[in-house]
């Protein structure tokens, strides 16, 4: 008797479970390059994921995988997500570009969104990125004013257009307010490795840099700057406010939430199409974190004015005259850079020393 009861209830539970599945929430997958607690890049993508959950509640189911190495391993993880029934998959690092497109070719019914890349081989792949270089222009302005040694240290991750754009933009605007400024660049060849990032920051500080800009994701350079004393830094990808008001004097904040919500909605409504989105300060995808009191009021005002000009489109971060590092002309007076050149940028502007690693 008892056994029959048990079996009946089990069968009922199974029936209920099937009914629940039948409602079929939209399944959204996220592939992260670092841990969600990195306090930078991946943290902000995960905030975007949480915003999607908050917006749609039971109608979505999100899954994510952290610390996915760029390359073949990524392809395995993305395939796994697609096999598990994801309707929409966000792959959030440049190095997932080929894996994303490879998997997308095999799953035509699944929508793929690749961050910071440019390949859309099939109809079910979109790319999206933010114009971080606009934020770099604001940072460069503050850096140029604030540096006393006239040496700005820059921790690069990989020599890809995204990072090179940031270096050029920061340099152009630092140079504009401080003609004597010099950039020292160290390539860490990682997006997230606190030990390497800390070492790089320490070396730059030892060589006289009193401003550290980073294009890597952890807060380790902030900690190194704090230990060194009289050095300022900027939060990268996330606000990193716990290191304010000094060394962290401002930050670039990525805000992916509106985009993630819009794209999820598009999949739900069946209106999703392959697009290429590249938004900046104006659209709110790039935010400038609170400029702290360690920055003099007039510098802060200048930085905010630049931010406003970038936001309303009256000023472009790459406005000529700009000459390339090798001395050849790039932009004539008043000319602005086109998106094609920016997307594939593989040269330094005049004045930056050293070579881009190949």
């Amino acid at each position, binding site marked *: 008797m008892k056994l029959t009861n048990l079996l009946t209830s089990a069968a009922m539970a199974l029936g209920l479970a099937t009914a629940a599945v039948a409602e079929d929430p939209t399944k959204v997958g996220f592939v992260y390059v670092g*841990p969600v607690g990195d306090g930078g890049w991946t943290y902000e993508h995960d905030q975007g994921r949480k915003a999607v959950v908050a917006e749609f509640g039971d109608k979505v189911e999100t899954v994510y995988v952290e610390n996915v190495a760029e390359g073949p391993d990524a392809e395995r993880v993305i395939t796994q997500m697609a096999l598990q029934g994801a309707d929409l998959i966000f792959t959030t690092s440049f190095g997932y570009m080929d894996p994303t497109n490879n998997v997308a070719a095999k799953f035509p019914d699944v929508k793929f969104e690749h961050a910071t890349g440019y390949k859309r081989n099939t109809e079910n792949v979109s790319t999206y990125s933010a114009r971080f270089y606009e934020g770099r222009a604001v940072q460069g302005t503050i850096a140029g004013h604030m540096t006393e040694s006239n040496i700005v240290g820059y921790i690069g991750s990989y020599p890809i257009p995204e990072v090179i754009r940031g270096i050029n933009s920061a340099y152009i605007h630092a140079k504009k307010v401080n003609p004597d400024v010099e950039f020292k660049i160290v390539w860490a060849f990682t997006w997230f490795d606190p030990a390497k990032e800390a*070492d790089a920051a320490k*070396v730059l500080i*030892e060589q006289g840099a009193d401003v550290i800009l980073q294009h890597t994701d952890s807060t380790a350079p902030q900690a190194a700057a704090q230990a060194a004393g009289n050095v300022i830094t900027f939060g990268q990808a996330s606000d990193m406010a716990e290191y304010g008001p000094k060394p962290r004097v401002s930050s670039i904040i990525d805000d992916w939430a509106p985009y993630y919500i819009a794209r999820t909605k598009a999949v739900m409504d069946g209106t999703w199409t392959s697009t290429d989105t590249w938004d900046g300060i104006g659209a709110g995808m790039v935010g400038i974190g609170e400029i702290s009191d360690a920055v003099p009021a007039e510098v802060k005002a200048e930085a905010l004015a630049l931010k406003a000009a970038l936001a309303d489109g009256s000023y472009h971060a790459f406005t000529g005259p700009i000459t390339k590092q090798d001395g050849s002309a790039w932009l004539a007076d008043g000319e602005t850079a086109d998106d094609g050149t920016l997307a594939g940028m593989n040269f330094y502007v005049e004045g930056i020393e*050293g070579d881009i690693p190949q």
Partner: protein
Amino acid sequence: MDLSAINPVLLIASLMVAATPLLFAAIGELVVEKAGVLNLGVEGMMIIGAIAGFATAVETGSPLLGFVAAAGAGALLSVLFAILTQFAQANQVASGLSLTLFGLGLSALMGQSYVGVKPPQMEKLNIPVLSDLPVVGPILFGHDLMLYVAIALIAAVWAMIKFSRLGLVLRAVGENHDAAHALGYKVVRIRILAILFGGACAGLGGAYISLIRVPQWTEGMTAGIGWIALALVVFASWKPWRVLLGAYLFGGVTVVQLNLQAAGVAIPVEYLAMSPYLITILVLVILSADKSSAPAALGRNFHASR
């Protein structure tokens, strides 16, 4: 390219910091190997020390307590190795390797909630007058306490092995455990103590990375330092002062290559990145060309009945 931007004093000061985790791990392993035990689990014990020390320092607010916890955690993990090899007579190489894999996995689990957390800072020693001396000040008197502990440990181990009765017993056990047993020494007990010491040292080395050198917690943050320590002990011919030399050489080249990069030297970054490993191994191989050899009983299990 501007080599004048490199400040030799700061360079030496920071190479000492870069070398200290290696120093801790290697001197611990040296004692273990002198006792005739080969523990390949250094990396695993280091990373467990790194997370245990980090977590304790964050929870209590005291970096010193963190180091104590790290030593404890490293020793605790090495107990597993001791049980496997000294009582269960398991193969030392296999046990050590599994210890490393286990440590890496366990630390990732323990560290889940500590990613991105800011640890309390360890104060640098600030000796009036001495710390302010030019050149000598930053190099000799401007560091944190643990760096001096590491150097003191090298000196202590050297003196212990060379001059003390304890050192003689340790070497006897490592060279010929049957003879040592016949003389009435407790081979297993001495080896277990050596393994525990090695575990505690590796734990300290790990915590030095997570609490001072970086300071932050990330999965797998020891990044192979444990393996370098193992190689260093061999190439240093089981001599404490050569371990110090090798560690400083490794730390030195690591720091110099970053300095060269920042100074804009036109050498491809990949060559610079591999240089610490190459140069350290090269120098120590040349040094180890003398007669000194491994403890004769290294890696061999002992059982009184045999």
